[in-house]
């Protein structure tokens, strides 16, 4: 692995915030081929997981307000460095790409383990580790909490707003019923929701700087990850079958443009059958 170590000479620049980002296929454009039951991925571009943009934005806001070093970390194939460049173009200071064939086929446990190992190597005592609330390809929302467990850091999920004072934080989190205000002491792992803030755009000068910014490329050995705990072998869950979801072909169709009253009658009939009117 081309190892360029992340230096820890950022002392005096305030906090160190690590943001974990993921490169995902833009699922809006993924379709299934009805004849072969396979994903048609032609022309599907890779993007930064949209929820991770909010986590990055929170980190950059703290950097603006308090001064901080922001490190973006991602695990993926070699081309996943694109999301690190994007993070740096928006204002992250450095990036770590975790890439190794040994990581392939990782489930959320093996992914959490490798990310936690890498975070420990970047900085054993970061102030904050931020995640988006979930990734749009897997939708599990499990990796942030998993990393908090491996690191032994407090966990706060669904953060809407975040304030720092000294080594304590005060956050508003979204619950199923409303809002909780939670206080605690850093370091902590947090997952951030979309309501938090509007992500900034990368500037032209940001892109230019990002082209030259340091990216460390680490494999399993570099982060001291036990081979048997990485990738498919380190994953307790196994995908045993993949299939197309049952397709609803649509029911009754009618044209309400010519005779709206017929359409209204049909709607009322369904409402009556369902017992709602």
């Amino acid at each position, binding site marked *: 692995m081309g190892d360029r170590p992340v230096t820890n000479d950022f002392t005096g620049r305030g906090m160190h915030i690590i943001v974990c980002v993921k490169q995902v296929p833009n699922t809006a454009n993924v379709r299934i081929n009805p004849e*072969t039951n396979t994903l048609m991925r032609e022309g599907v571009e890779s993007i930064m997981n949209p929820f991770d943009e909010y986590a990055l934005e929170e980190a950059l806001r703290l950097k603006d307000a308090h001064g901080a070093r922001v490190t973006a970390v991602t695990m993926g194939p070699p081309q996943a460095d694109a999301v690190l460049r994007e993070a740096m173009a928006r204002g992250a200071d450095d990036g770590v790409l975790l890439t190794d064939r040994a990581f392939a086929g990782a489930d959320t446990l093996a992914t959490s383990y490798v990310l936690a190992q890498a975070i420990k190597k970047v900085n054993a005592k970061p102030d904050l580790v931020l995640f988006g609330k979930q990734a749009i390809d897997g939708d599990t929302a499990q990796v942030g909490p998993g990393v908090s467990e491996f690191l032994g850091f407090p966990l706060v999920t669904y953060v809407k707003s975040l304030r720092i004072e000294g080594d304590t934080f005060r956050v508003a989190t979204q619950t199923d019923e409303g809002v909780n*205000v939670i206080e605690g002491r850093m370091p902590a792992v947090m997952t951030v929701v979309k309501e938090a803030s509007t992500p900034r755009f990368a500037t032209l000068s940001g892109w230019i700087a990002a082209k030259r910014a340091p990216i460390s490329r680490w494999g399993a050995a570099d982060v001291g990850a036990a*081979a048997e705990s990485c990738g498919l072998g380190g*994953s307790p869950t196994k995908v045993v079958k993949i299939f197309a979801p049952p397709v609803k072909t649509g029911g009754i169709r009618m044209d309400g443009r010519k005779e709206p009253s017929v359409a209204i009658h049909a709607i009322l009939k369904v409402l009556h059958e369902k017992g709602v009117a």
Partner: protein
Amino acid sequence: MAETPIHIDPSKCKGCKKCITACPFDALYMDGKLAVVKPDECRVCNACVKACPFKAISSRPAESAGTADLSAFKGVWVFAEQHGGKVREVAYELLSTGRRLADDRGCELAAVVLGQCVSDSVAHLIAAGADKVYVADQPELAEYEANVYTDALSQLIAKYKPEVVLAGATAIGRAFAAKVAVRERTGLTADCTALAIDRQTGLLHQTRPAFGGNIMATIMTPKHRPQMATVRPKVFKMSTPDPKRKGMALAEALTLVAPSTRIVKSSRNASTVNIAEAEVIVAGGRGIKKAENLELLRRLAELLGGVLGVSRACVDAGWISPAHQVGQTGKTVCPKLYLSFGISGAIQHLEGMRASDTVIAVNTDPNAPIFDVADLGIVGDLFEIAPLLIEALESRK
């Protein structure tokens, strides 16, 4: 450098390309007349193994470390999340499914309640199907804190060794189930939409949507216990409670870690609609054209005893708060009735509402994808249909 777990025997491969079409991840290519795996793309779903007519492809599942004595694990558990002593509905839905799994496997079904002053819930949980209810009733568990809850459930798992643990995919369940799974070094499958158990082996078949619902995957945890899964609210149906059912409550007194964070303020936002639990949703999309026009649908929702939902377009336009958004980046809903107006039906939106019992869609574009999931599709102008419908409903009152 690890090898690819998928192995293609060059002596058996005839270059028929069946594996290439079978692969959902585009992870195989032809090198001359030989199929080759792209290790970075391969997710080891084994679709190619089954597709190969010449048995040239094999999968060598890597041995997982830390394989416990699986036979020591018995019983199906449901985490019964409660707030202020009241158990959430999703726990009852899980007990209904858990009962079926326990009967199929021939084992006990237990509910686990963590909290303070929660003993009233025991009778309800037994009526809903639990044979046993483990109750940790202590002040440290009064409010959810990730670390404390993880500690509590992990201690109980270590003590009783359940074979299966199910939790609701709520804000709390998702987060702390993931921590428990890591602490137990076991597998956790999120947002399952179907669960089945093998009577002999006890293997839990966990089916969930992947890639925004474009494909379904069945997942197993073959060598680790407990097998853990989360399920979103309203995915499974609750069964009718049987107050005559017999069961046993077991009080647990746990010594727990100190909380690492504390809740200083908790507010229930009265205006926040919970569209995820609504029985009737009237939803609007881009076709609604401006914020004021949403009042039309709000009135209709009111008449039907439902709530207002919207597609992402309305939220992005700033017409309404994200609390109303249905879809992948909003909420997943499964009402009895979903009545949509001016929503074309982007895949993310369909993913968020395809579990609805009945869908009625009104849209001007006859080719809108929403019609593919609609039980009743009306090609028409919502500004014509909606007012007529309101008029008809009002005249009936």
